[in-house]
């Protein structure tokens, strides 16, 4: 990075986004409601409609398509708050990943109707990318798109598709003769099988594309570059979400350490607990730093290639560690279903695998650094 110096201080807008989101999520989507949505047999749509009314479904969608027109540093603040509240629903899938893919495609205007629908909440889009357990790299895509008249025929099976049970539209990655690209495929032409998830606040599913014919316009046209950029930006936003997840788990642990008495003293007065909390805060601040940095460099491809995996490399393990230590500091109560500690622990773990595990990001960061 040369030239301009970045500021990591929140803008006035970002302060407002944070306080509005914090208030709404605390009052309207407390953990009781999260649990209800999470345990329901069918994916919830009413919450997504509410969030769409707040402008969150189209947070990144430009105003000309009816969205809120915010940038990534703003969306990261919202993602952090949604993480703090382990809010269910397709924010990451539709409002971040699919939106980013469409905006970065050859010609977003061609998908104006889709973007408008996503912004008003009437359409949920999900990205269907992965096929193999450890197949995070676009190289691993075997699904094919073959030319058929003016259009394409898509064949393949996508797995662990985030928010698949919610989706009205899939952006599926498929291999053509001239490389990998994304294709917009309506959900009523595919077979979706919901699969139970570790983090039950987020739904997933298998999606089978059995020779699905789509018109020429279905091809996004951004190629592999757009896919990689989308996944990098996704990793940056996930890192912000992880900061929110970790900070909520940390706050719960801190509160417990202050109020739980054993041996006649607050357990937070024992150094074994106090020092762990000090380390948790220190590492949390480092995770916050890399997440803030990554979402500020999305327009600089060279820097993003370092900053996005860096954010994942730091924020993922920090969130896994803090949410785990939070259970430990709570003792037995932290292991109960009733307590919220497990919601954070599960969210952190799943989120740290969604777009690449630690080794994948580490290695990509090394490649970008020439190491």
């Amino acid at each position: 990075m040369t030239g301009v110096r970045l500021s990591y201080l929140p803008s006035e807008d970002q302060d407002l986004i944070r306080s509005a989101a914090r208030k709404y999520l605390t009052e309207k989507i407390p953990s009781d409601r999260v649990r209800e949505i999470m345990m329901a047999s069918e994916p919830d749509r009413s919450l997504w409609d509410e969030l769409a009314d707040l402008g969150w479904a189209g947070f990144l969608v430009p105003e000309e398509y009816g969205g809120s027109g915010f940038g990534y540093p703003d969306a990261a603040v919202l993602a952090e708050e949604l993480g703090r509240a382990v809010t269910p629903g397709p924010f990451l899938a539709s409002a971040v990943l699919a939106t980013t893919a469409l905006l970065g495609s050859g010609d977003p205007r061609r998908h104006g109707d889709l973007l408008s629908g996503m912004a008003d909440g009437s359409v949920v889009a999900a990205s269907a990318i992965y096929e193999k357990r450890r197949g995070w790299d676009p190289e691993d895509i075997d699904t094919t798109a073959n030319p058929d008249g003016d259009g394409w025929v898509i064949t393949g099976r996508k797995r662990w598709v985030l928010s698949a049970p919610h989706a009205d539209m899939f952006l599926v990655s498929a291999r053509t003769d001239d490389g990998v690209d994304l294709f917009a495929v309506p959900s009523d032409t595919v077979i979706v099988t919901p699969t139970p998830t570790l983090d039950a606040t987020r739904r997933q599913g298998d999606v089978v594309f059995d020779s699905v014919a789509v018109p020429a316009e279905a091809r996004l046209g951004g190629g592999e570059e757009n896919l990689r950029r989308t996944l990098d930006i996704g990793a940056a936003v996930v890192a912000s979400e992880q900061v929110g997840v970790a900070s909520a788990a940390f706050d719960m642990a801190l509160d417990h350490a202050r109020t739980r008495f054993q041996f006649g003293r607050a357990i937070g007065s024992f150094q074994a607990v106090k020092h762990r909390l000090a380390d948790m805060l220190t590492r949390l601040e480092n995770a916050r730093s890399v997440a803030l940095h990554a979402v500020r460099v999305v327009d600089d491809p060279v820097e993003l290639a370092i900053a996005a995996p860096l954010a994942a490399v730091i924020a993922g393990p920090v969130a896994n560690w803090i949410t785990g230590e939070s259970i430990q500091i709570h003792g037995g109560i932290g292991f109960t279903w009733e307590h919220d500690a497990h919601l954070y622990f599960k969210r952190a773990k799943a989120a740290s695998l969604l777009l690449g595990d630690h080794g994948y990001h580490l290695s990509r960061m090394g490649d970008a650094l020439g190491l």
Partner: protein
Amino acid sequence: MTDAARVEEAIDRLLTEHPPNETAPAEFWGAQYDAGLAWVWHEEGSGGLGVDRSHHPTVMRRLTEGGADTSNRRRNVLGIGMGAGVLSVHGRDEQRQRWLRPMFTMDEIWCQLFSEPGAGSDLADLSTSAVRDGDEWILNGQKVWTTLAHVAKWGLIIARTDPDAQKHRGLTYFVVDMEAEGVEVRPLYQITGEAEFNEVFFSDTRVPDDQRIDDVGAGWRVAMTTLMNERVAIGGTETPRGSGAIAVAVDAYREPGVDDPVLRARLLELWAESEAARLTTIRANETATVGTPGPEGSTGKLSWAELNKEITAFTVELMGLGGTGFPGGYELTRPTGMPDYDPMRAFLRARANSIEGGTSEIMRNIIGERVLGLPGEPRVDKDLPWREVPRS
């Protein structure tokens, strides 16, 4: 004009009127002090411009880019990094006039006489005494681990002036002339073989009362200002990406023959950790205002100390059998400044990072109690007069 513009303008003028490549360092530092660019957050006339500390990184970056020598901050760190902050908050105007400029130009080196054989982490338990005698104070006692005492002109010292008061209350802070009678400095050699630090003995050493800092009995408060500044001086310096210890590790990794996926993963982990810590420092500096840094400075100190130990140890591992050597051997030397270290010495020196300036355990206590508001340990010394506190 905004503060940022004032700072920029002062830098422009300094660099134009005193081109670093044509100006001797001491002269440049004098001009830098006069321009208010030594500590921008100090008042005008005391080496500052009265603006927020957050402008400091700009000064450092622009001066470095302009080719200026900024090594005085490191070489006179106890003065420039800590003493100056103490004088700006607790000193009197004539004290600032007397001491700040020659400190910044390196004409006078400073040291910090806090630790004693019986009082380290528990600094407030110290026993060096200062007894009033008219316009003077008479010092007696022993200090230890005193970095640069052998080259210092001035020492920041905290001494007990009331042994009957509770231990934090009976302390007073002074500046002592290291050339005064009754000051004896003996080298203490470190695990590197070098003697950066010393033990210092005071026998009936006289200190004029006008070298007292702040009130009699206010020594603990002044000491806290010193330590907060110290932690920021240690952990709060903004550095370019990939510089410092990690750069040495990367160089060692790039040596022929080091091609191993396990080592690569480890290197990248450490690179990521140091980049994250670096960004956190930048963020902390962005919010820094005028005055003394808060307890948050302890997180930067803690991260940096622990990471530096890991990185330097890993660098030795990358050197393979080369890491069993020790170029130059252990010649017992007494450096006159803060030396630069080769990777083997850096590895050994790093062990001090989590001890000097407050141990990592004490940093965690501070973060836990002062930042997070957790209750302290039960204490046996709190309400006793200092005389009656049990000690080893």
